[in-house]
C-alpha cells in the first residue's frame, strides 16, 4: 500500500466532478481527499486526489480516470519530487492560561490566529498533511472545537508540469 497524489485536469463542465467521484464509489476505490477548482483557463478544472492503495489498484485508478471522457490529462505527483500543501482552519477553546499556550503553539507551527473571541481562537495553518495532523495532536483534545481542512493540493518541483 502506498499513498498517491493524483493531479488531473478536466473539462470544467457539469457532471465532470460527479463522474470522478462516482468512479471511485462504483469501483470500490478508496479516496482520502479531493480538492478541485477552476484554473487560469476557465474551461479547465484542476483536481488533486489522494488515495492509498496497492500498485495494481493504482494502475486501475489511473486507467479508469483517463478513460473518463471529461478527463484531459493526469499525473501521479508522488512519482517524482513535488510540493504538497493543505490548509486548515481550526477553532480552539482558549481560556485563562491556555490563551498564551495555544498562541505559542500556533507560532511554533507558523499558524496565524485570524479570529479571536473571549474564549476561542481560529487559527489558519498551511503545510503538508503530517504537519497539520501534528498540530491537531498537540492541542489538548478537549480544546479542539472544530477542524476544517481543504484536502491536499500539490505541484511538481522544477520545470515538470501538468498543463495542456
Amino acid at each position, binding site marked *: 500500500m502506498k499513498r498517491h497524489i493524483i493531479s488531473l485536469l*478536466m*473539462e470544467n463542465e*457539469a*457532471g465532470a466532478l*460527479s*463522474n470522478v467521484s*462516482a468512479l471511485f464509489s*462504483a469501483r470500490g476505490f478508496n479516496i482520502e481527499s479531493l480538492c478541485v477548482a477552476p484554473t487560469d483557463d476557465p474551461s479547465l478544472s484542476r483536481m488533486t486526489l489522494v488515495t492509498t492503495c496497492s500498485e*495494481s489498484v493504482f*494502475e*486501475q485508478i489511473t*486507467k*479508469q480516470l*483517463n*478513460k473518463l*471522457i*471529461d*478527463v*484531459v490529462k493526469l499525473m501521479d505527483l508522488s512519482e517524482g519530487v513535488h510540493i504538497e500543501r493543505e490548509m486548515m482552519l481550526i477553532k480552539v477553546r482558549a481560556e485563562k492560561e491556555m490563551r498564551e499556550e495555544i498562541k505559542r503553539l500556533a507560532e511554533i507551527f507558523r499558524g496565524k490566529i485570524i479570529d479571536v473571541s473571549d474564549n476561542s481562537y481560529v487559527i489558519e495553518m498551511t503545510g503538508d498533511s503530517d504537519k497539520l495532523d501534528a498540530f491537531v495532536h498537540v492541542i489538548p483534545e478537549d480544546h479542539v472545537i472544530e477542524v476544517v481542512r481543504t484536502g491536499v493540493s500539490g505541484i511538481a518541483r522544477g520545470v515538470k508540469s501538468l498543463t*495542456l
Partner: protein
Amino acid sequence: MELSGAEIVVQALKDEGVETIFGYPGGSVLHIYDALFQQDDIHHVLVRHEQGATHAADGYARSTGKPGVVLVTSGPGATNAITGIATAHLDSIPMVVLTGQVPSALIGTDAFQEVDTTGISRPCSKHTFLVKRVEDLAETMRKAFYIATTGRPGPVVVDIPKDITDPSVKIPYEYPRNLKMRSYSPVKKGHLGQIKKAVDLIYNAKRPIIYSGGGVVIDNSSGSLIDLARELGIPVTSTLMGLGAYPASDSQFLGMLGMHGNYEANMAMHEADVLIAIGARFDDRVTGHIAHFCPQAKIIHIDIDPSSISKNVRVDIPIVGSVKDVLNDMLRIIREGDRKIDNDGLTSWWERIEAWRGLGCLRYEQSDEVIKPQFAIETLHKVTGGDLYLTSDVGQHQMFAAQFYKFDKPRRWINSGGLGTMGFGLPAAMGVQMAHPDKQVACVTGEASILMCIQELATCKQHGLPIKIMLMNNGYMGMVRQWQEMFYEGRYSHSYVDALPDFVELTKSFGHVGMRVTKPSDLEAAMQEAFDRKDELVFLDILIDPTENVYPMIEAGKGHHVMAMSPASKQGDQR
C-alpha cells in the same frame, strides 16, 4: 439554415446517417416527435416498453456495426431504458439514447416525471450529457455519436430538457462534422515494439492458443483473425461474445471457452504456454478461478481499452490499439519475416488437443420421446443452413445455442453476455430484422425470459417483422434449476414457472402464427414451416426435456481443467 431544437435533433440524426430509431413518446419529447412527424427520412419504430427500444437499438447495432438510436421521454421513460443501456454498456455496443427531460427551469424541483437521468445512467453508460443551451445541441449530438462509436464503443445518453427543443426558438444550424475533443482521442495503432515482442513470443511458443473475444466482432476484424490463425496454424477459442468471428466449422476452432466452454478449449487454455488474447476482457465467466487461470502461459493482450489490460489477470505483453490495426501489423511483420513456428511442438500440441476433442464433450443422450434442447438447436442449424441471425435470451437455452449453433460469421450471434439480461432476445431480434429485412432472424428463448418483453409481439405486428421465435419451453428457469440441483441439493426454490400462458394462443391474440411441438420427430418439419412462412412471425412453443443440464461446467472455484461432464460424454468428471 435556421432550426428549432427539436428540428436540430432530427437533422443531426440525418447528418449522422441514421435511418431507423426506436422509441416511445411522452410529454418531454413531444416537440421532437412533432419534428419527426414532419419528415420521411428517419423511420421510427414504436415499441411497447422503453426496455424494448434499447434492446432493439442494441440488436440493430450488434448486427450492423452502426450505432443504435433510442428516443424516450423523461422519468419512467428514462428509467425503463436503463436496463437496456446497461446491457449495451457491458457488451460495448455503440448506442445513442436521447431522453427527454423536464424544462430546465423545473430541474431539481421534483417536477412531474423528473428523474436525474444523467445521474442514474452515469455508472452504466460510456458517457452522459445534459444539454444546457440549444446552441450546444448540434455539437452535443455529434459528440454523442463520436464517443459512442469510437475507441471502445458504448452507449451515450443525451438528456434534453423540453425547453431546449421549443419549436418557436430557431437558431442557425451547422453540423460540426470535424469534431475534435482534447479530452478524448482513442488510440488506434498499437505500439510496434510491443507487437514485435508479441510475435517473438509466439514464435517461441510450443503450445500457443488464441483467445478471441467480442472486440474482434466489434472492430470487424474477423478476416484478420482468420488470416493470423491460418498463417500460424494455431488453435482458436472464443468467448460467448466473440462467437462467429472465427468460423465454428473450421478445424482450428476449439469452440467456446469458460464456464460452459468446450473441454478441449478449456484444457488447451490450462496447458497453453502462450495465450494471445484479442479483444477479450478476462471476464470471470471465462477465467474460472483466477488463481488457477492459464498457470503456464505468457499472456499477450490486444485491446483498445487500456483499463481492460491487467485488470483481472496480469499480462506480459499488453498492446493497446484497435484489434484490426494491431492484427494487421502483426500479420505484416509475420509475413515479412522468414521465421517458422516450431512445427514439432505444434504437431504434438495438436495431438493433445485432438485427444481432448475426441472426448466429445458436447455429446448428449438423444431421445425419441422428448425433445432435447441440444437437438432443437442442431435442427435449427440444419433448417436454416447455418445462415441465420440468432438472438438469445438468458439461461440454459442461451448456452445450448452458443454451444450447438455453429456460427461461421460474425454479427450473427446476438446475446447479452456481460449483463445477462433476460428479456433481451425478442426486442433485439426486432432491431436485427429492421436492419436486415430480407434475412432470416430467429430468437431462441425460455418461457421465463420471453415473458419479460412479450409485449413487443405487438411491435412486431405493427412493423411487420417476421421473426421466428424458438421457445425452449422446459417449464423451469432452467439455469436456476440447474444450480439448485447441483449446489442446493435439489431445493428448487421459486424456479418453477407456474401458471404459464398458452403461448400458441397468446401469439395468435397478437395476430401472429403460433405452433406447438412436442415430439422430436415433428421438430424439423415445424421449424421448416416456420421459416417457409417468410412474411409472418412464427412462435414455436417447443416443449423440451425439463431436466436437461448444460455441460461441460467448470466447477465453482476451480480452474479450467476441472469440469463436470455430461453423463453422455465418454469420460465422467475430469479431475
